[in-house]
């Protein structure tokens, strides 16, 4: 019972220690050494079935690979708290043997903007150093122009579903263009193949269109093919520029967020002590 890629698997892994270390990284008490590995991001609007698809895919992959999942949910901009609910969908964690081959961690966006906080890169680094073969990142439900996951992921899987608007939605620029592969989930529902068609014809106007796969996390239809195609998909060169751009933006945002006076300036502006412009001047010192 150790079928795993690097031969280590999760056997002998101290999950408690791993979880504690990830907390320290998340709280920025510890900066892990860089470890590269395969990071696959799953992004798409809320409710298209990102969690359920990841659950199904883990059944396919975890017989040969050790997998960690970092599932991101939003932090409340008002209270700073979060309700992290992606774990509920993960039936694979309940499997007595398979569940042990998977590490699942819920991550709140905390102060970061965007659908993936930059800390996810550090968390993934540590997971790779612990011997995980791949890290799946589930982004916050994000629709059209949110591409922060490009800064961290080697492959971007955009999840779509039926009944999500007309063909013009697929013609709009944005996230879909960065996809290395598009899944149209809920293929058991009417309208799914129509959506796949529309996306296909829209993306085909460019020369390097990503694969589009119909699948249903509910029935399992198309999942095997999807699992295979995701692993075979190469991250395309055309998105390199966008990736670098997102990385730079992320770096800048981090610098701003970790300025000591950041919260103070927000407070001063909202109470009227400072004008917005005065606040900006202080923050750009």
């Amino acid at each position, binding site marked *: 019972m150790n079928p795993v890629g690097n031969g280590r698997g999760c056997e002998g892994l101290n*999950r*408690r220690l791993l*979880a*504690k270390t*990830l*907390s320290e990284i998340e709280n920025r008490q510890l900066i892990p050494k860089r470890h590269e590995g395969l990071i696959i991001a799953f992004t798409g609007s809320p409710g298209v079935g990102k969690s359920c698809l990841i659950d199904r895919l883990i059944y396919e992959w975890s017989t040969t690979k050790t997998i960690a999942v970092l599932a991101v949910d939003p*932090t*409340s901009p*008002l*209270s*700073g*708290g*979060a*309700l*992290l*609910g992606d*774990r*509920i969908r993960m039936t694979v*964690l*309940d499997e007595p043997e398979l*569940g042990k081959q998977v*590490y*699942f*961690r*819920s991550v*709140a966006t905390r102060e970061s903007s965007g659908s993936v906080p930059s800390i996810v890169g550090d968390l993934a680094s540590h997971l790779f150093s612990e011997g995980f073969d791949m890290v799946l990142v589930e982004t916050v439900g994000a629709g059209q122009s949110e591409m922060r996951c490009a800064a961290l992921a080697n492959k971007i899987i955009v999840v779509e579903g039926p009944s999500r608007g007309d063909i013009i939605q697929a013609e709009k620029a944005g996230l879909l263009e960065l996809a290395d592969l598009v899944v149209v989930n809920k293929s058991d529902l009417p309208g799914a193949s129509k959506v796949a068609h529309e996306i296909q014809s829209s993306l085909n106007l460019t020369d390097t269109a990503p694969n589009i796969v119909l699948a249903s996390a509910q029935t399992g239809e198309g999942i095997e093919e999807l699992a295979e195609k995701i692993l075979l998909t190469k991250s395309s060169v055309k998105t390199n520029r966008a990736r670098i751009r997102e990385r730079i933006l992320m770096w800048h945002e981090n610098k701003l967020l970790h300025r000591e006076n950041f919260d103070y300036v927000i407070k001063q502006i909202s109470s009227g002590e400072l004008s917005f412009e005065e606040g900006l001047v202080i923050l750009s010192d």
Partner: protein
Amino acid sequence: MAGRQRIVIAKPGLDGHDRGAKVVARALRDAGHEVIYTGLRRTPEQIIMTAMDEDASFLGLSSLSGAHGHLFPKICKLLTEQGMGDVIVFAGGIIPESDREALYDAGIRAIFGPGTSTEEILSFIDEAVQKPSGVSVESGWKWQGL
């Protein structure tokens, strides 16, 4: 206020009622904590694994089915066995007065019945982080109410 805590809210056993658990989860979220809700009908082993992987500092158990006397102490025991004796456990639901002493003995630090204010639960969290209150700590401390 206690800093941001990671809190698992769990529904052990065959009990389909999670209104209370969701209200508590929501209140904790609104107080600035990170809350992981397990969903319904979890086994003690699944709950332990969730608390371990998510690095929870608090574990809230909710039961309205009458199985608390069996399930809650089992979860407390498993936590200790897994080296998670520092996790602080609290409980909620329909738990008769006569059952409570045994649960406190198992390491549960607070029991909240119907009608508890969310303010009381938040006060408990604030106080518990400052007390020796992990499930395997034999301090005898328990929440005395507001």
